[in-house]
C-alpha cells in the first residue's frame, strides 16, 4: 500500500510530507527531488523506481504530488487516489498552488489522516468529508449528529447526507462532449471518437431516487422489439438512437442494475458531480472539416492554404473557433490573409493562430499564408505537426439526447413534476487534428 505522500513545489521543496509506513524514510523525500524534480530531462515515466522504492507522481500546475511505496501496490489505485486527493483539496481551498497549500497545511494533514489509513484509501467523498473536517473542531456536535456523520462516512450512500432541504428543487444537466479527430491530409478519417460526460448539478431535498434515460441504441431497440404493434414508431426512434461503445458511472449509480437492465438509477450526491462518461465512435457528426494545402516553394518559402468548412445545421452557431497552423522552426516572416476572423503569426509558439468568434453551420472560410524561411544546414526535415482546431458547438456531436431524468422522493411531498430541470448540450473539440 501507499507508504507515504509528499507534496513539493516546483523547486523541489517539501510542502507536505506524510509517512504511513515504516519502510519509507525521510531519504525518500530527497530521492524523488534529486532524481525526478531536479532531473534535467523530460519525465519519461510517471512511475519511477529509485533504490527499490517506487514513486508515483502527478503534477498540478507547478506542484508535484508523489506517492511512495516499497510494495507491489495497485498502481491504478494510487493514481486514482492522487487525482482524488487533488479534487478534495481543490474543493476545500480552490486552485492547487504553493500558496494555497502552505496556507492550508494543517487542513491537508487532517485530510490525509482521514482519507488514507495505513496507506489504504478511505472514504474520500468531499460531500461527507466536509461534514466533519471543517477546521473548526467537532466538539459542538450532538450525539445524533456524530453518529449520522459516521454512518454516512461508512455507509452505503457515503456521497450524500440525510436531511438536505431546498425550497426549490432544481436540476441542471450538462451533456459535455469532446470530439476527437485525426484526419489524413487527403481528408480520410484516421480515427474519430467522442468522449462525453454527463455533469449534473442537483439541488434536491431528501434522498431522491433518480432515473436517467438517453437515446441509447440498446434500450431503444429493446423497447422497439417489446412493442410489436408500433412498427412505425420503432423505425423513427431507431434512427435517432446512438451506439455507445462504453460508459462508466459515478459510484452512486447501481452498476448491477445497469448491467442487467441497462437502466441508470441512482441517489445523486448533492451539488455538482459527474454522473457518467461515455465514448462513441459511430456516426459522429464532425462539426468542422479542415482542408490543408502546403506547398514548398524553393528552399526558403512555404505557401499554406487552409480551408475550414462547418458541417451542421445553418441555424446553429459555433463559437471560439481557433485554428492553429504550425510553422517551421526557421520561419523568418509570415504574411497572412484570411476571409474571416483574425490571424496572427506567433513566433514563440511556432504557429499561425487563426481565430474566428462565431461561425454558422454549412459555411466555409479560408486562410492563406506565405511563410519565409531562413536557409539552414539542418538536414533534418521539418516534422510538419498536424493542424489543430478548437471550437465549441451547441449540440452533442455523438448525437446523444437526454430522454428523461425522473426524480422520486417518496418521503417528502414533492414529485417529479415539481423539479425544475435544465438540459444543455455542449460539444467541444478534443484533439481535433488534420495532418498536412
Amino acid at each position, binding site marked *: 500500500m501507499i507508504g507515504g505522500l509528499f507534496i513539493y513545489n516546483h523547486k523541489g521543496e517539501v510542502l507536505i510530507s*506524510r509517512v504511513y509506513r515504516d519502510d519509507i524514510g525521510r531519504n525518500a523525500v530527497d530521492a524523488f527531488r534529486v532524481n525526478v524534480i531536479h532531473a534535467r530531462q523530460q519525465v519519461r515515466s510517471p512511475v519511477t523506481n529509485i533504490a527499490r522504492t517506487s514513486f508515483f507522481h502527478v503534477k498540478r500546475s507547478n506542484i508535484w504530488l508523489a506517492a511512495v511505496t516499497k510494495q507491489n501496490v495497485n498502481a491504478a*489505485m494510487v493514481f486514482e487516489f492522487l487525482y482524488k486527493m487533488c479534487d478534495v483539496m481543490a474543493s476545500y481551498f480552490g486552485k492547487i498552488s504553493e500558496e494555497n497549500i*502552505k496556507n492550508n497545511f494543517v487542513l491537508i494533514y487532517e485530510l490525509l489522516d482521514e482519507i488514507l489509513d495505513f496507506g489504504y484509501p478511505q472514504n474520500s467523498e468531499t460531500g461527507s468529508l466536509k461534514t466533519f473536517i471543517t477546521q473548526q473542531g467537532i466538539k459542538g456536535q450532538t450525539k445524533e449528529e456524530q453518529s449520522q456523520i459516521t454512518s454516512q462516512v461508512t455507509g452505503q450512500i457515503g456521497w450524500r447526507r440525510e436531511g438536505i432541504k431546498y425550497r426549490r428543487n432544481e436540476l441542471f444537466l450538462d451533456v459535455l462532449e469532446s470530439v476527437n479527430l485525426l484526419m489524413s491530409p487527403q481528408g480520410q478519417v484516421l480515427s474519430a471518437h467522442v468522449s462525453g460526460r454527463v455533469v449534473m448539478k442537483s439541488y434536491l431535498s431528501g434522498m431522491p431516487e433518480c432515473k436517467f434515460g438517453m437515446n441509447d441504441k440498446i434500450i431503444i431497440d429493446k423497447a422497439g422489439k417489446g412493442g410489436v404493434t408500433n412498427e412505425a414508431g420503432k423505425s423513427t426512434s431507431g434512427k435517432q438512437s446512438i451506439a455507445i461503445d462504453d460508459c462508466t458511472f459515478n459510484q452512486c449509480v447501481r*452498476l448491477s442494475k445497469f*448491467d442487467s437492465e441497462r437502466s441508470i438509477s441512482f441517489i445523486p450526491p448533492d451539488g455538482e458531480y459527474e454522473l457518467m462518461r461515455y465514448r462513441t465512435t459511430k456516426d459522429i457528426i464532425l462539426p468542422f472539416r479542415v482542408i490543408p494545402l502546403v506547398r514548398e516553394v524553393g528552399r526558403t518559402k512555404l505557401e499554406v492554404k487552409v480551408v475550414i468548412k462547418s458541417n451542421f445545421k445553418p441555424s446553429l452557431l459555433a463559437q471560439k473557433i481557433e485554428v492553429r497552423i504550425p510553422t517551421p522552426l526557421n520561419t523568418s516572416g509570415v504574411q497572412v490573409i484570411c476571409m474571416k476572423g483574425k490571424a496572427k503569426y506567433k513566433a514563440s509558439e511556432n504557429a499561425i493562430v487563426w481565430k474566428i468568434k462565431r461561425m454558422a453551420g454549412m459555411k466555409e472560410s479560408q486562410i492563406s499564408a506565405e511563410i519565409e524561411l531562413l536557409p539552414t544546414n539542418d538536414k533534418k526535415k521539418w516534422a510538419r505537426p498536424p493542424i489543430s482546431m478548437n471550437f465549441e458547438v451547441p449540440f452533442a456531436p455523438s448525437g446523444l439526447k437526454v430522454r428523461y431524468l425522473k426524480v422520486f422522493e417518496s418521503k417528502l411531498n414533492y414529485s417529479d413534476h415539481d423539479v425544475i430541470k435544465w438540459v444543455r448540450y455542449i460539444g467541444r473539440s478534443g484533439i481535433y487534428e488534420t495532418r498536412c
Partner: protein
Amino acid sequence: MTDSKYFTTTKKGEIFELKAELNSDKKEKKKEAVKKVIASMTVGKDVSALFPDVVNCMQTDNLELKKLVYLYLMNYAKSQPDMAIMAVNTFVKDCEDPNPLIRALAVRTMGCIRVDKITEYLCEPLRKCLKDEDPYVRKTAAVCVAKLHDINAQLVEDQGFLDTLKDLISDSNPMVVANAVAALSEIAESHPNSNLLDLNPQSINKLLTALNECTEWGQIFILDCLANYTPRDDRESQSICERVTPRLSHANSAVVLSAVKVLMKFMEMLPKDLDYYGTLLKKLAPPLVTLLSAEPELQYVALRNINLIVQKRPEILKHEMKVFFVKYNDPIYVKLEKLDIMIRLASQANIAQVLAELKEYATEVDVDFVRKAVRAIGRCAIKVEQSAERCVSTLLDLIQTKVNYVVQEAIVVIKDIFRKYPNKYESVIATLCENLDSLDEPEARAAMIWIVGEYAERIDNADELLESFLEGFHDESTQVQLQLLTAIVKLFLKKPTETQELVQQVLSLATQDSDNPDLRDRGYIYWRLLSTDPVAAKEVVLAEKPLISEETDLIEPTLLEELICHIGTLASVYHKPPSAFVEGSRGVMHKRLPARTGSGEGTECPDVGNAAGGSAPEAAPSIIPSQGDLLGDLLNLDLAPPTTTGPTPSTSGMQMGGMDLLGGGLDSLMDESEPLGGDIGGSPAMGAGFGAAPTVMPASLNAPVGGGLGDLFDLGGGVGMPMGAYIPPKTVWLPAMKAKGLEISGTFARRAGVIQMELVLTNKAMSVMTDFAIQFNRNSFGLAPAGPLQVLTPLGPNQTIEVSLPLSTVGPVMKMDPLNNLQVAVKNNIDVFYFSCQYPISMLFVEDGKMERQVFLATWKDIPNDNESQFQIQDCHLNSEAASNKLQGSNIFTIAKRTVEGQDMLYMSIKLSNGIWVLAELKVQAGNPNYTISLKCRAPEVSQCVFQCYEAVLKN
C-alpha cells in the same frame, strides 16, 4: 488566517522559543506553536527535542490541536520511546470517548506509534474498538490490526485479533468488510501457509455482496482479494465472473483494472466453446479502450497492462488498433507504450494503416520514439510477410532522410529483414553501403558489417569496406569486433584468393592483440578451423542460418502468467515479478504466491495459480534475487499436476504435487550436469557467435509453462485414441500449432515383454530443436519412461525422427479418468509442451497371464457377481480358434473351451502388469458375427478398457 507564515520562521534559538510557547497557558498560542512545530517537521528540521512539551498539549478538547499532536507523535515516538509512554493514557481514555470520531482517531493513531512498550497497552482498547457499535470505529480498528501485525505479528496472533478480524468479513457494514479484507490480505502475505483468508464459496459470496455496496476503494480491496481465489469448477468461475462484470463500468480505473484481473484469471477455467466465454471476451474490450481516455498517468498504467493482456489474449483487442494511434500531444511515455501495442496488434488486415502511422511517427522529434517507430516498421515486415516489400521501401525512404539515428536504426532492422526473407531484398545493399560512414553506434556498425560479410560475394568491394573498419579495430566495441572477425572469415571463405592477407590480419588482431577472451577464443576457433579443414570451416561458418522468429520482446510465458495475476499493480507496470523490486525480507513474492494456491485452493486450477504457486517454494530461500536469479527462478518453476485428489492444504503438498509432472525430474533426464541454466547462458552466445542473430529469442526458456496445461485439458477430452489394433496406428498427439512447431504423433506397443512408446517427432518450425526430454504425470498403472528420450541429433526444420521409448510400470500411481489416460510433458530447447494420450490397456497384459484351470474356476466363483460385466462385440467374423490365436498374441490366454449347443465358450485369463487378474468368458456362435463377452475382475474399473482391447484385437 494564513498558515504559510509558519514555513518562514528560520530564526536561531527557534526551538527555545517554541518550547516557551508550547508551555503557554493560552490555548491559541499553544496551537500556533504546535503548527510551527509541524511546519518545521515537514521541511525536515529535527524538532524531536520538543517531545515532552508537545505531548503535554495532547490533553485537549480542541480536536484540531489533538490531531496535530498526534501527527507529531507518529513521527517522533520511535526516537523517544520512553517518553512516548506518556501518551498511552490519553489514547486509552480517548478510546472510551463518547464521540466515535475521537475513538476512531485514537485507535488509528495508536497503531502508527511503533514502540514495543506501547503496543501492549494497545491490545485492550483495540479489542473493544473491533467490537464497537459504530461502524466508523470498527473500520478503523480493522486497519489497526494490520498496523499492529506489522509491528508485532506474534502479539496479534496471541491476542486472537486475527479471528476477530475474520469475523468482521461478515460485518453488516460494507466499509468494515472492505477494510477487514484489506487488512487480512496484507497479513496473509506474511503467512503464506495460514488459512487466513479462508476463501470458500460462502465467504466469496459475502465479498461479492459487499462489492456492490462499498466505496470505490473498498471495491478495489475486495476485487484484489477475489483475484487470489481459485474457483472449484467452471460453473463457480462463471458465476463469479457474472457478478464481477458490472464493475467494468465503474468510473474508477483501478476498479476496472482489478475487475479485468479477476476476469482474466477466472476465464482460464471456462471452456472455450461456452457461449459465455465469447460474451466475456467481447465485454472486456470496451472498458480497456475507455481507460485510454483517462489522465495520462493512468493511461500509462493501462497501456502497460494492455500490453500484457494483448500477449495473453490477442483476440480481445484485435479490432481496436486505431485507438492505439499516437496523438501528437501524448506524453512520451504514453507514445512509446502505444507503439509497442500497435506492433503486437499488427496483422495482415490492418498493416496498411499501421505502416502509414509508423511512417508519420518516424518524422517526429523525440529520438527514442523515432527509433522505436523505425524499429517497428522492421518488425512489421518480419511479422506480416505481405507487407515486407512496403516496409523495406519505407525504410529506404527513411534512410534517404540522412537523419543519423534514423539511418542507423533502419540498418539494424533491415539486417533482420534479410534474415527473415533471404535472397529477396539484397538489391538495397548498395544504398546501405552509401551510409557506411555515418554509422557511429555499435549496433548499427555490427549490423552493417554482418550484411557486408553475409553478402560478400555480391559486393564487389567488400574487402575494402571491411578493411576500412579494421583500421580502428581496437577502438571498436566487442560487438563490432566479433562481428568484424566473423564477417572477414566469411569473406575469406567466399573469395579466398584476394583476401588471405586480410583474414590473417584480423585473426592476429583478435588472437594476439586483444584482451577480450570471447574475441580471442572465437579467433582461435576460426584459425584452427581454417588451418585444419577449410571445407569443414565453410560448412560451419557459412552454414544455413535458422530463421528468426516473428515476435520479439515477448514476455516469457511463465512470467506472463504471473503478471496477469498482478494486473493493475506495480508488477504489471514494471513487467517484473514483485520479487524483483520488493524488499526481500518483506517481499511479496514468497509470501503472496503460496497464499494464492496454498490455502484450500484446488490444485486443479488450470495454469495461472499453478505456475505461480509452484514458484514459491523455489523462490523462498533467495532474499533479493538479482535479475539473473530471476531467470533462475523462472526456470525452476514446477507445475502442480493438473489433477490430484482434492485440494492440498499445505505448501509442502504443493511442492510434492509439483514434482510429479516435471519437478526435478527433467533435470535428471538431461545428460549434461548443468541442465537448465546452462542453456540460457548458452543461447545468446550462440546467436552472437555464428551468424549473429540478434532477433533470436532472448532466452529459450526451458521452464515448464503453465499455459501448456490448458492445452492439456483441451486435449484430454478430445483425443480419442481409436483402440484399433494390437499396435494401434499412430495418431497425432500434439499438433504443431500447440507446440511452437513441434508435432508429436505416436503409439504404444509391447514387444518381447517390453512396453514401448513409439514417437514420431516432426519439426515444423523454422529453427533447430534440441535437448529433448520427456516425462509422464502419475497415471493409473505407474507407467514411466525407463530411460531418457533418445534424440541425439538436433532436429532440423522439416525433419522427422522416430524414437522408441521403453517404459516401465514402476512409476508413481494415480487413478486417471479414463483409466488409460496418460499425460505427457515433452521439453525441448524452445519450451515445454503437454499433451495427453490413451494407451491400449493390452500393452499391460503380461506374458505369464495364463492361469491354472483350477485356479481359474475358483477365482471365477470367488469374484462377486456384481463385478461381472457383459459386452457385445459386433461384426466379428472369426471362428473361435482364430480368435483364440489372435488374442493369445496379445497375452490373452485361452484356458479352456466348451461347446454348448453350437456355441463356443472360451474361458480366458489376463494378467495386468500391476498383478490384477481379469477373467473372461467369450461366447462365439458359428455364423453369428456378434460375440458376447463377460468379464470378471476384482477391480471392475478395468473391464471397460479390457473390452475395448478385445474389440480392437479381434477386429484387426
